[in-house]
């Protein structure tokens, strides 16, 4: 009953004119970011984050969440019209969406994408509202040892499921953890790895790393692609609506995609990308026309697009209730919460229920706005695709510069951001996802603190990490994940040459 009153109070805050305005701005900017090829939700949010400094925390978080939703919506547009995903989670939409556009059904592909996203977003928000309170109550039982094992599990999963190889993911993650140890040690007060540089006494700001790894590196890669030639933009042909047959074929994939996306989104690692892959595979496997997938099947757009948006709602459950971001984008969102002096975790819902529910409730409104922006107004956003890349990319560099400089008025920070940009570029070139590193940069300090607190409480006995059922559960899952994603592939690659030699 108390929660219900908070939900209503959240709506009252979300429906204040100023917050409606920020929801709209967030949706608009998110859609623009989503439509721009290459610039994903994490990069867009990281770019916008410094600009929200002086804002009221509720309005700023409402805008950032609306932006997240907008980017998830907008990503499909480039997949369908120029065969280039706006972000990795739109890759599956591209397979059939672009083929539909080539057949003159771009309007239907964009429509099913927007409708699927709207349905998934609304149901996802509803599930988030239902699950947030029970999850946070359960999470109140967590002490330092439980927190440590949970964060460890999340990190291992993200390393395993983002990118091509778990070892590379872990490599990036450990590098991120190493960067996190730079600065004053919170427990002993000793400076670590500062090299006498005063600017790093407080550690390396997450924002510098996030903007560098996500936005700057993407700009460098896009500059390269730009020099190779420009992708052709297909026009929106056909009405922006579905035929009766297309409706019949789409509604079940949308429902299935919604549930697949939401529950996958709740698990750390892979984020929406894996959810869309599962949704696409499910649709293909249960279809009677499997062979036609990849040639312009509407089911191949409806399922993944619903999963994509539902996943973003699902990923909010562990973020708001456990303080655990499972993706790079939610890591940026968690950094935003910390930046505004809020500690994400089970106490967030108890200490700041108005804020959390205002943000969640504003997402219902944002979802409705996004449907309008992405259906009747889509032709306006498509014009963004015609902005010359050679003009756009230098402007993104300048916007990143303004955002980062405004934090401490420091050119040193700009240098650090640029260095992370170069590192991110190298990561992309050698097929390492920057997400594990970004996640490690957010969770590194809580990981070390919970580890040392648990050890202090136990008087230095590591058995504290096996002292509760929750610890054993998460450690068990961590060991299982390491076995499945690290040991098994190694064993299988070792067996293959032996088998080949035998034949």
């Amino acid at each position: 009953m108390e929660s219900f009153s908070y939900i209503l109070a959240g709506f009252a805050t979300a429906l204040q004119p100023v917050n409606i305005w920020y929801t709209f701005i967030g949706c608009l900017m998110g859609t623009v970011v989503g439509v721009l090829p290459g610039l994903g939700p994490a990069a867009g949010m990281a770019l916008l984050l410094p600009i929200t400094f002086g804002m009221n925390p509720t309005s700023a978080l409402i805008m950032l969440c609306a932006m997240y939703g907008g980017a998830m919506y907008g990503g499909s547009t480039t997949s369908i019209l120029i065969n280039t995903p706006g972000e990795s989670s739109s890759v599956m939409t591209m397979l059939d969406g672009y083929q539909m556009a080539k057949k003159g059904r771009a309007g239907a592909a964009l429509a099913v994408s927007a409708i699927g996203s709207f349905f998934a977003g609304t149901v996802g928000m509803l599930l988030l509202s239902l699950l947030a309170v029970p999850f946070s109550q359960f999470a109140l039982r967590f002490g330092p040892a439980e927190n440590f094992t949970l964060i460890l599990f999340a990190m291992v999963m993200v390393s395993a499921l983002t990118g091509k190889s778990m070892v590379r993911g872990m490599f990036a993650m450990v590098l991120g953890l190493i960067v996190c140890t730079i600065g004053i040690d919170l427990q002993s007060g000793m400076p670590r790895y500062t090299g006498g540089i005063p600017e790093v006494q407080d550690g390396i700001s997450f924002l510098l790393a996030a903007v560098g790894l996500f936005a700057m590196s993407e700009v460098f890669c896009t500059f390269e692609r730009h020099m190779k030639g420009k992708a052709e933009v297909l026009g929106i042909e056909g009405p922006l609506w579905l035929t009766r047959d297309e409706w019949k074929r789409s509604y079940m994939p949308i429902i299935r995609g919604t549930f697949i996306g939401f529950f996958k989104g709740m698990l750390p690692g892979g984020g929406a990308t894996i959810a869309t892959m599962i949704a696409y595979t499910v649709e293909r496997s249960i279809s009677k026309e499997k062979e036609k997938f990849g040639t312009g099947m509407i089911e191949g757009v409806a399922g993944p697009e619903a999963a994509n948006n539902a996943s973003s709602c699902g990923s909010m459950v562990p973020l708001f209730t456990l303080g655990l971001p499972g993706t790079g984008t939610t890591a940026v969102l968690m950094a935003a919460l910390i930046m505004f002096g809020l500690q994400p975790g089970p106490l967030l819902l108890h200490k700041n229920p108005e804020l959390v529910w205002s943000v969640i409730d504003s997402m219902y409104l944002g979802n409705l706005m996004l449907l309008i922006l992405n259906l009747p107004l889509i032709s306006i956003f498509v014009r963004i695709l015609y902005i010359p890349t050679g003009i756009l990319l230098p402007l993104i560099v300048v916007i990143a510069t303004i955002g980062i400089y405004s934090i401490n008025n420091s050119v040193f920070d700009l240098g650090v951001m640029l260095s992370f940009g170069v590192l991110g570029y190298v990561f992309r070139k050698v097929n390492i996802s920057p997400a594990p590193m970004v996640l490690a940069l957010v969770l590194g300090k809580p990981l070390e603190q919970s580890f040392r607190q648990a050890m202090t409480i136990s008087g230095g006995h590591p058995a504290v990490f096996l002292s509760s059922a929750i610890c054993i559960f998460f450690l068990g899952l961590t060991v299982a994940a390491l076995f499945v994603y690290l040991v098994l592939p190694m064993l299988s690659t070792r067996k293959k040459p032996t088998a080949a030699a035998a034949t």
Partner: protein
Amino acid sequence: MKIAMLPVNATLGGAGLVVVAAYVYGTIQIPELQSGDPLGPRVFPFGLAVLLAICSVLLACQDLRAVKKSSASDKQAANDGATDLRLVAGIVCGVAFYYSVLEVVGFALATSGFLLGSMLYFHRESPVTAIITALAFGPAAYYLFGKLLEVQLPAGLFGI
């Protein structure tokens, strides 16, 4: 100048081991004081060093096991990497130069200069558009962010 096909994992592993060596050296330099913390500030970093060393060795071993056999994703990465290194180095140097003069000449001038150079290079098909956008954006952004939104941006020697 094109990037040669390097054994990616082995190179990463080697780089990782160099980081481990530097990190361990840095960890030894951390002063330890007696406090209520049974572990101190060094144990966690040492653990990370061990983890990174393991990851680096595992990466290097992957290349040793399959020297000639590179995965499709690596080939794709190599193809992506087969671009003009001078281009990326040039962009990075250009951005670094922009940052180095930002406080000296001020945001508006430095930004217009950076935009002019980069837009003329990357948008050669319409130099007029590039020049107009570059010259207009610097002062406009300075006015919008610096004056209206009160974001602190460097005014520079010339006070603009």
